[in-house]
């Protein structure tokens, strides 16, 4: 503030202006000085500053240089991975209690050095309150203590890589790191530029708290490249990402085919509805909107949706409250031109602005701006620019408000304002987002599992559900095999046509049967009309012909599935359980026919085939029983308020089935998916489709709504491509080739799909009575929503 010191008491007495309140950063500066303002890597429990590396400069909000951060190269990566591998050995050798103790001790250290932590995170523009970090530490320390008691069938993955983008907040980074550590994994963090200093500082504190060397390693550099390099190392067992969408997509694409699962939480940049109903406390809602939309570094792009009957009163209050707001600093010049273009574009469409003052001619300051009267089609709503802009739209009825809020590719969060309890809960249930904040916004707690819905993520963070990201069933090997990405032509994958079927001159006593597939509740031929031959187990004769399904069949199936799925979800678990019981009964009734088809298809003896049918009936009954058990909870949270944790269906799930146990694997996956309220589009094994196609009769005879279960046969790769390129499908469970896995990892990024990939077959698990497969399937069929209601 130039000339501020020359303001006299009388000047200020007249103007009543706020004075300068520069936050002190002395402690942070001292820590940076102790590291000579050149930050390197944290490997094997100590700081490393290898020479001759490129560096990146971190600047503070004013654009002054804070410190330099080096970019790790191949050699540093292998050093980091070796350290993490030995770290995992020492960390997993400790008892649960010892691990818990380290995390608790770290919580204490955070309290001791809170000033330093606050200042370092502030200075590097990744602000995070130490209280929220302490809460993370305490919460995950309790899980570290109880892992073996409460999750007995699960083991740590090994080395977990946590990658975050440059603009990711520190909290989101630690929300990945701490559960990974608590479950006994060692971690390699690839922080973004802004979180790098804090990550290094926290790693130092963790080591001081007794974390064995190598358990937590920090490698700095350009996020996507370095992240992919680390992920390419076969020692790394899992990759998880948090941050903006672009870097997430890039990371998924570059790591596709490396044989490592990548889960993504694109928490930064999602556009989220802020819905004000007429029954709201308008003043509080407006305050909330201003606080949320115009804070300095916001991760969420809010879109204000206001019920028409209170629109004038909201606008009037916005004008009054915004009159006193200062300009907000933009991160860069490029952002400024984006913001200006968005404002101009909106104005050309007739939007009016609410601003405290006109934007200054140049510089990185921009006034808080509400764009009134934009429409869902406006560019500032579809692709909101960064900066202090808040588009405002109006809606007529409560239902339309929810529809408007849902009409977005994002499903990260929503804030709704109403004093009407019924409306609040109904809206919270109908909004397809991971977090719903009633009469509040941006509250988080690690005890609540939340999943990004739609394009907002492929994994669940927080709560017990969030831990499975960092665990594997103790009894089974990893589902992906490490490999280096094949040079796959993604445009050509799955496009090879099937050979045409022509009547052969060969005389067969029994002509092979032509099977039909099952789409939208009807058995039918494929859209193309073509069929493919199914070989008999001896491989010499044609057993049957099945439809050659393709893109259009998948389209029809998804259309039917997405129509029927919400109603199916709404029916509730007990009604779904009854349907599953009757499906099991129907299967039992067709026992002989099913066994015969399995036997004919796979060459198993009739006895063995009959056993598979019996197991399948048991599996369906098992799902029905689990379904009838209550799910979801109201966890106690430290903040004043009530929180609900609600399981949600993924929506439409695409399943590419394995060759093994063609019936048992089908009903296992189908049962879990529909028990949880999903609809399925299933692709039977290309080799052994007949049992699945026979099973269609059982589904037809059941009371499952038409379209809930679809079975499309044909060439696996071709159908995989069709599933991957349908944006309504939220999850794909895949058993098939490594190339198929690579294709899916590369393609399912826009929008993100939750992928459960298996690049090799294992026979044993399907028939095992072990619960871990069932649990794993169960988790994959669900996404989580948390609802916050502040109360006394």
């Amino acid at each position: 503030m130039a000339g501020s010191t020359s303001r006299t008491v009388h000047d200020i007495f007249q103007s009543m202006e706020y004075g300068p309140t520069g936050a002190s950063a002395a402690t942070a500066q001292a820590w940076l000085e102790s590291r000579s303002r050149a930050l390197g890597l944290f490997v094997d429990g100590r700081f490393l500053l290898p020479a001759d590396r490129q560096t990146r400069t971190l600047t503070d909000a004013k654009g002054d240089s804070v410190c330099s951060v080096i970019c790790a190269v191949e050699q540093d990566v292998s050093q980091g991975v070796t350290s993490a591998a030995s770290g995992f050995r020492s960390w997993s050798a400790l008892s649960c209690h010892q691990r818990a103790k380290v995390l608790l001790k770290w919580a204490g250290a955070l309290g001791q050095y809170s000033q330093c932590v606050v200042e370092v995170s502030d200075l590097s523009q990744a602000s995070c309150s130490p209280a929220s970090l302490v809460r993370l530490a305490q919460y995950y320390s309790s899980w570290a203590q109880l892992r073996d008691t409460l999750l007995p069938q699960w083991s740590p993955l090994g080395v977990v890589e946590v990658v975050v983008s440059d603009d990711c907040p520190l909290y989101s980074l630690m929300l990945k790191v701490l559960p990974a550590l608590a479950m006994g994994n060692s971690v390699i963090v690839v922080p973004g530029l802004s979180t790098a200093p804090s990550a290094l500082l926290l790693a130092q504190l963790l080591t001081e708290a007794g974390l064995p060397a190598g358990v937590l390693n920090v490698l700095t550099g350009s996020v996507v490249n370095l992240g992919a390099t680390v992920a390419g190392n076969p020692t790394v067992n899992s990759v998880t990402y948090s941050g903006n969408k672009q870097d997430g997509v890039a990371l998924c694409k570059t790591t596709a085919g490396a044989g490592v699962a990548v889960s993504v939480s694109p928490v930064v940049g999602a556009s989220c509805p802020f819905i004000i109903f007429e029954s709201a406390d308008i003043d509080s809602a407006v305050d909330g909107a201003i606080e949320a939309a115009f804070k300095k570094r916001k991760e969420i792009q809010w879109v204000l949706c206001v019920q028409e009957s209170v629109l004038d009163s909201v606008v009037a209050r916005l004008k009054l409250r915004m009159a006193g707001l200062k300009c907000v600093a933009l991160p860069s010049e490029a952002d400024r031109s984006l913001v200006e273009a968005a404002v101009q574009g909106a104005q050309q469409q007739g939007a009016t602005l609410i601003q405290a003052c006109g934007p200054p001619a140049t510089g990185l300051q921009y006034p808080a701006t509400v764009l009134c009267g934009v429409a869902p089609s406006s560019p500032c709503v579809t692709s909101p620019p960064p900066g202090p802009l808040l588009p405002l739209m109006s809606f007529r009825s409560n239902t339309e408000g929810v529809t408007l809020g849902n009409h977005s590719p994002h499903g990260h969060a929503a804030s709704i304002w109403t004093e009407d309890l019924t409306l609040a809960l109904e809206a919270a249930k109908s909004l397809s987002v991971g977090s719903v904040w009633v009469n509040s916004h941006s509250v988080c707690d690690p005890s609540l599992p939340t999943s990004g819905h739609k394009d907002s993520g492929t994994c669940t963070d927080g709560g017990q559900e969030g831990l499975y990201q960092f665990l594997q069933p103790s009894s089974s090997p990893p589902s992906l095999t490490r490999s280096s990405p094949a040079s796959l032509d993604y445009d050509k994958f799955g496009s090879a046509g099937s050979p045409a079927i022509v009547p052969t001159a060969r005389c067969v006593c029994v002509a092979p049967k032509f099977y039909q597939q099952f789409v939208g509740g009807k058995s039918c031929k494929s859209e193309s009309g073509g069929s493919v031959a199914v070989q008999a187990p001896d491989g010499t004769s044609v057993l049957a012909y099945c439809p050659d399904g393709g893109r259009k069949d998948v389209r029809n199936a998804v259309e039917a599935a997405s129509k029927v799925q919400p109603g199916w979800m709404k029916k509730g678990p007990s009604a779904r359980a009854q349907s599953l019981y009757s499906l099991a009964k129907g299967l039992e009734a067709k026992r002989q026919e099913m066994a015969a088809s399995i036997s004919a298809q796979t060459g198993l003896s009739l006895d063995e085939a009959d056993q598979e049918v019996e197991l399948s009936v048991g599996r369906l009954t098992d799902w029905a029983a689990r379904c009838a058990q209550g799910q979801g909870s109201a966890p106690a949270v430290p903040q004043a308020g009530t929180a609900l944790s609600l399981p949600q269906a993924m929506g439409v799930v695409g399943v590419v089935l394995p060759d093994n146990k063609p019936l048992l694997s089908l009903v296992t996956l189908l049962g879990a998916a529909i028990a949880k309220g999903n609809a399925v589009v299933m692709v039977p094994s290309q080799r052994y489709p007949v049992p699945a196609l026979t099973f269609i009769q059982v589904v037809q005879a059941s009371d499952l709504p038409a379209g809930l279960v679809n079975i499309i046969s044909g060439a696996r790769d071709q159908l995989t491509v069709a599933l991957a390129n349908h944006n309504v499908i939220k999850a794909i469970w895949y058993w098939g080739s490594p190339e198929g896995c690579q294709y899916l990892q590369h393609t399912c990024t826009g929008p993100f799909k939750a992928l459960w990939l298996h690049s090799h077959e294992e026979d044993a698990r399907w028939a095992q009575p072990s619960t871990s497969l069932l649990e794993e399937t169960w988790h994959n069929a669900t996404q989580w929503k948390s609802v916050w209601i502040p109360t006394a």
Partner: protein
Amino acid sequence: MSARNPGMNMDLEWVSKVRVNTQAVLKRAQQIQSVKLAKKQWQAAWLLKAVTCIDLTTLAGDDTPSNVHRLCMKAVQPVPYDLLQSMGMHDKGVTTGAVCVYPSRVADAVKSLKAANSSLPVASVATGFPAGQTPLKTRLEEVRAAVADGAAEIDIVINRTLALTGQWEAMYDEIRQFREACGDAHMKTILAIGELGTFTNVYKASLVSMMAGSDFIKTSTGKESVNATYPVAIVMVRAIRDYFLRTGHKVGFKPAGGIRTAKESLVWLALIKEELGDAWLGPHLFRLGASSLLADIERQIFHYVTGRYPALHELPMA
């Protein structure tokens, strides 16, 4: 004081639509309290502004002409002349907003101030202060008597019985009558928020008081168990904002009771600045009802000017 609020016809529909979310208000109050305020000359200037907004008050059974006289003299010169001089504020008319006394002491206060050639207004509480549980007739008479003795501002208390039982029209009518009895004297309406139960009731009572023509709304008498709190203030100033948006009339706000420290007075100013804007930051639309607050502000100003903390006896007593 600013232009008077003429009031308006009772609008029950408006009152019935009021909704206040307690938790959101509490959160906003926390947020306002955590606003960091500047030090040095900013703090000094803001504190002096707070001084000019104080209704320097004595409301005790043992009030006599002598302590009322001392209070008046303190109100005229709330900060020692030499301190003001070193800040360049000695000729800027820094006095408190008013002195506030019981009706029977109004004449004493008017006399003292007149003798000191001061135009400082004398405010009087009235209408059965603090409980308001006396017949309407005597409450009206009390107002007229205070005005006749020279009170320029009357702090009336609302009838809590009417508010708690939802008889908003009856409350409107009473306040209307008080307003008539006040004549040219400005009327501040005390809501006694500690006895209204909910924030929603506070908001409704604020609206009804303003509709009936109050020039100020005031939190409490200082005699209830709960006095001026920030969350309640947020509810009241939002009602003021609502009324302003609807009618264009600016109604003032006076928190009273329990405000004792200089720091609190700064938070109050920040709250007004945040919620209502700079237009409300002055004695014409904002008052702080307090008796011991002034001493703490003086102490802070003494420290700003001299760099030392004073002993209590170094500051003129009230």
